């Protein structure tokens, strides 16, 4: 055996021993944590139940964040720090629309420039969406000039509609009823059509026309219901905030990231650029809403329930349900639809996806939209749970990032498991400490995970 071979063998042995040591340490650590939690549970079961509830409630927010974050990351493979601002926009969007309702309206905000800004952004995004959706199908049949004028008018109309909605938050239920109706009808048509395609492929177009009629009737009924129920204002404001956050994300992607991704040769460039965007948006939010924390209005289920010696707010149960439902929807979209297939194809290899005819720009844009909607949901849920402040975006971003690393970066199952696991660990960790140490605990969890399980709990296959 030559000297070089000998050295190779010793190196391999050394690495093996090192791996064994690290595994041993990890197992010991896990046992210690489990033992500590078990001891605590035996000591005072009621309190343990309380911490478990709190952990689930916090974990729901983290899970929502991690799902959107991991969806975006596993598609474009760079860390988009704008994501934190998306969460803050979600929370502050709700506050903006309901500020006349909070604490007797003493913090009421409604500024013209902000409305105009969002109107312009929406108009731009609508113009791009129209161009993508309709131009390619219609430009053979109609004159380009007509298309341009009609498209421009439609986009402007969208912008003006957004501005109107933002400027009249008190009449949200009336203004939004057509949009909600159109959405309900659209989803109904899509679902019925899917069922139709699956179960009755041989039949003619007759049933389809009937389905459309049913869907439109449903939409009109929903519109009438929404327009006559002012109490829906808060929940409609959630809807608007999510849409706004998604729209801003889409605009950023189309306006900036597409160009940058062509030029950038390292993910760090994208990371720093998105950090700049996060800085700018956080400061913008501070200018509009001031730096002090603000409360969001009460929701249904703000009253605590008592379950076996522990209390939990009904809203937290709703949040946990929302996280699970969000997970279900995302799983369905990614695993069962053609769009999901395209997303996975882009995540595996963007160039090849382009070659086989996937419009990667559009698919990634929709991914950014969905990601931002999840972030906004997380932001507004955490805002209703505690309070909102401009720098919440950065902290929520970090929590979502940690949760997705703990769960296994790029994996959807990992995201939800990681989110809830992080929430639980954080809550059990502050049992003997004060609540302000929870951020520290989650970063210690992160460093431990990165050191011993860099793949995370449920790694991407």
């Amino acid at each position, binding site marked *: 055996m030559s000297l070089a071979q000998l050295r190779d063998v010793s190196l391999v042995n050394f690495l093996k021993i090192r791996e064994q040591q690290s595994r041993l340490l990890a197992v010991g650590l896990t046992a210690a944590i489990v033992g500590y939690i078990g001891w605590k549970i035996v000591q005072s079961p009621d309190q343990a139940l309380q911490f478990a509830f709190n952990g689930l409630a916090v974990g729901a927010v983290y899970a929502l964040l991690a799902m959107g974050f991991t969806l975006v990351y596993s598609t474009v493979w760079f860390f988009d720090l704008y994501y934190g601002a998306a969460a803050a926009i979600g929370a502050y969007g709700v506050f903006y629309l309901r500020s006349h309702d909070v604490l007797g309206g003493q913090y009421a905000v409604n500024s013209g420039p902000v409305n105009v800004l969002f109107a312009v952004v929406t108009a731009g995004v609508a113009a791009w969406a129209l161009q993508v959706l309709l131009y390619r199908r219609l430009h053979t049949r109609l004159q380009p000039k007509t298309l341009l004028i009609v498209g421009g008018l439609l986009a402007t109309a969208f912008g003006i509609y957004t501005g109107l909605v933002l400027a009249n938050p008190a009449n949200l239920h009336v203004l939004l009823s057509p949009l909600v109706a159109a959405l309900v009808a659209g989803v109904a048509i899509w679902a019925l059509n899917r069922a139709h395609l699956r179960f009755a492929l041989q039949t003619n177009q007759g049933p389809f026309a009937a389905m459309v009629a049913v869907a439109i009737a449903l939409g009109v009924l929903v519109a009438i219901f929404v327009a006559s129920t002012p109490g829906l204002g808060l929940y409609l404001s959630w809807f608007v905030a999510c849409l706004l956050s998604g729209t801003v994300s889409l605009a950023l992607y189309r306006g900036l990231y597409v160009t940058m991704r062509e030029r*950038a040769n390292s993910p760090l460039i994208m990371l720093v650029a998105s950090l700049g965007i996060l800085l700018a948006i956080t400061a913008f939010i501070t200018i509009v809403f001031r730096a002090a924390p603000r409360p969001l209005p009460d929701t249904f289920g703000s009253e605590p329930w008592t379950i076996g010696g522990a209390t939990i707010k009904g809203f937290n149960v709703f949040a946990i349900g929302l996280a699970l439902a969000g997970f279900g929807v995302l799983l369905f979209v990614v695993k069962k639809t053609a769009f999901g297939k395209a997303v996975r194809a882009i995540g595996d290899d963007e160039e090849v996806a382009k070659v086989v005819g996937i419009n990667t720009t559009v698919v990634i844009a929709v991914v950014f939209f969905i990601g931002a909607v999840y972030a906004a949901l997380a932001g507004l849920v955490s805002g209703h749970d505690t309070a909102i402040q401009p720098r919440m975006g950065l902290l929520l971003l970090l929590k979502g990032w940690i949760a997705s690393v703990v769960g296994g970066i790029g994996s959807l199952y990992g995201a939800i498991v990681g989110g809830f696991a992080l929430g639980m660990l954080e809550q059990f960790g502050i049992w003997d400490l004060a609540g302000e140490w929870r951020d520290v605990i989650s970063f210690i969890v992160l460093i431990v995970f990165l050191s011993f399980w860099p793949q995370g709990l449920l790694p991407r296959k």
Partner: protein
Amino acid sequence: MSIATGALRNLQDVARDPRSWWQRSKGNIELWANLIVIGWALVFMLWRGGGFAITVGSVFAIWAILAVSLNLVVGYTGLLSVGHIGFFGVGAYAMAVLSSNASYEQLRTEAIPTFGWPFFAALPFSVILAGLVALVVGVAFNRFRDDIYVLVSFGFAVIAFTTFLSWRNLTRGAFGIHEIARPAIGPLVFEGELEFLALLLVFLGLVVLIAWLIVTSSFGRVLTAIREDEEGIQVFGYHTTHYKLAIWVISAMMAGLAGALLASWSTFIDPNSFVLLESVLLVSIVILGGLASIWGSLLGALAFVMLEEGMRFVPFLPSEFIGQIRQVILGILLVLLMLFRPQGLVGRFKL
């Protein structure tokens, strides 16, 4: 030296043949960045007079020490650390706790120990403490790279901030620490702002000198090689982890020095000076000025300070928004730089 001779040669060129000089340096962004920032600062200082210049100079010196120290890690070694404000805070709090006279009324729950050390006794201690913290943190962080490094360094900043805010028996939490000692050598007390500015500039010169010695030495060349290709330099038998740890500790000690100086300069600190966003601003200064360029960091810090001071004199701007508007401008600048000039204004290394 080379900067001075370069500037002199440039001046000679202008005097000799202005037209051809203009043709040659029209597209020289480095030259224009230098001219605009320094010219702006000079004009402002002349216009506002001495007191303004002293304040701006002190703030600039502290930020410049921080930026130079961070550039050693980010620009030369290629580790994008966002947690540098933590070491700044460790230095500041060490100085504050050790040298505060604490003659103020203390609540029983917030009672903190008083030491009453003089400045020059507390200064080495603060610097070494920052270095020790960096040693522990660096050993834990050494295995990470790229975007994961960004995440864990964010974590360090959060942990440091939470510690400053919540370890009330030592830091008085959100109340902050008052009456931090001013430096004194025998009978000479640095009470006035001008003397303190001189002291700050001496320390800044020292830091720049050390940084310059590091980056021009063989040690610095290994750091650059780690940035370019870590496996490549490992093949030549360099223990890159040791080098990364060494520069990390040195850089943290410089940041700790800056923190100690800040504490003594402002005589009052609270955790708000060490929030996560400040850390992000610091990184954006380093990137704005230029990666892997000491001069770039000085320029970036000057531009950052002048941006804030300059905006104080925009007539229709409410003063409470200045910090926020500066943040918006920095954010947009960061995006533009990443788009058009990833090495920063006068940088040598593209991210």
